[in-house]
């Protein structure tokens, strides 16, 4: 239940629903809690709902930071 995973939005569906995928597995979830979800977005999925969007730039920045720290 505590699980929260990043998944990619494949199709935006009516009624604030969306089809999301993770490595070829897809599932229909609710996006009613997040503003302005578009196909291609990554969202954090939790108990059937998107809780928020992933910012790709910030994600890249985090990885860069980690790599930097690792090589320090």
């Amino acid at each position, binding site marked *: *239940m505590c*699980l929260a*995973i990043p998944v990619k939005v494949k199709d935006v569906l009516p009624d604030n629903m969306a089809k999301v995928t*993770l*490595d*070829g*597995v*897809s*599932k229909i979830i609710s996006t009613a809690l997040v503003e302005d979800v578009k196909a291609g977005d990554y969202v954090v*999925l939790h108990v059937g709902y998107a809780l928020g969007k992933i910012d790709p730039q910030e994600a890249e920045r985090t990885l860069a930071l980690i790599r930097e720290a690792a090589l320090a």
Partner: protein
Amino acid sequence: MIKANRRKLDLKNGRVDLSHGAGGRAMGQLIEDIFHKAFDNEWLRAGNDQSAFMVPGGRMVMTTDGYVVSPLFFPGGNIGSLAVYGTINDIAMAGAVPLYLSASFIIEEGFPLTDLDRIAQTMGDASRETGVPIITGDTKVVERDKADGVFISTAGVGMVPAGLDLRSDAARPGDVVIVSGSIGDHGVAVMSKRENLEFDTGIVSDSAALHGLVAGMVEAAGAAIRLMRDPTRGGLAATLNEIANASKVGFRIDEEAIPIKPEVAAACEFLGLDPLNVANEGKLVAVVAPEAADAMLAVMRAHPLGREAALVGHVVADDDCFVQMATSFGGGRIVDWLSGEQLPRIC
């Protein structure tokens, strides 16, 4: 002589009703038109309440399993294929050559005849493909809501090649652990069709009969095999823990070496499951003497059902019977049985 013009079973819209289980003509028709037709063989045609066959003297094995999988049809198979392959596999895990199967059906009133027929035909196909005939059976019908569509219990017998004696307590420190292929496929395929859990995946059940693969293994290096198990309910984790406890040893396995399909891993992330706990229906775990490891892997990889066979760890001395795993991340952890009811009705 007037012959009653028996009405045909309505395989399109008909349903099993209580008369199909009452021991009268309706039951006889159901058995003949669906089961005997699908399984067709000389033993069933003989029409006895039991079937006879010649056996050579030697060591025989017998096993049984009940199949209650839900849903009954899933990607890569249905309850019928499970019921044939699953019991063949329990025979094969003794290194034995499966010979004959029995099948006991418990059917819920209202079950569509078309589904029953489809299941029976799958069993017939599986039986012909494996060369293991279903030679005797039984049919019961219970009232609506007293079963869940259909349950099948199969039993089977087979002969163990002379000199072979695989036992659950035979694992010894130093032995290697080989799995015959990727894990978790069956459980994920079944769960993908569960109501309220539904997700889309290309994963199909690995459901398959392993006796061919096993025959090759036994022929090539039978003396080196300590024991085999098919990691069904509870998955690889349960199987390794069972062996550890039966043999009073521990395991040290390597997460990176365990073959797992990316889609299975992804589905497990979705559901919060560990693939090590997920059921398989066409995989085996073999504990093998270390000197035979390479030969065994080569033999297995030459068989279509063992192409992805992998050495995933080895047996260690451990009074606590721990199954330890070096994680792909670089740490270590215990691989335990799953507590509780997380995945019911997977087989």
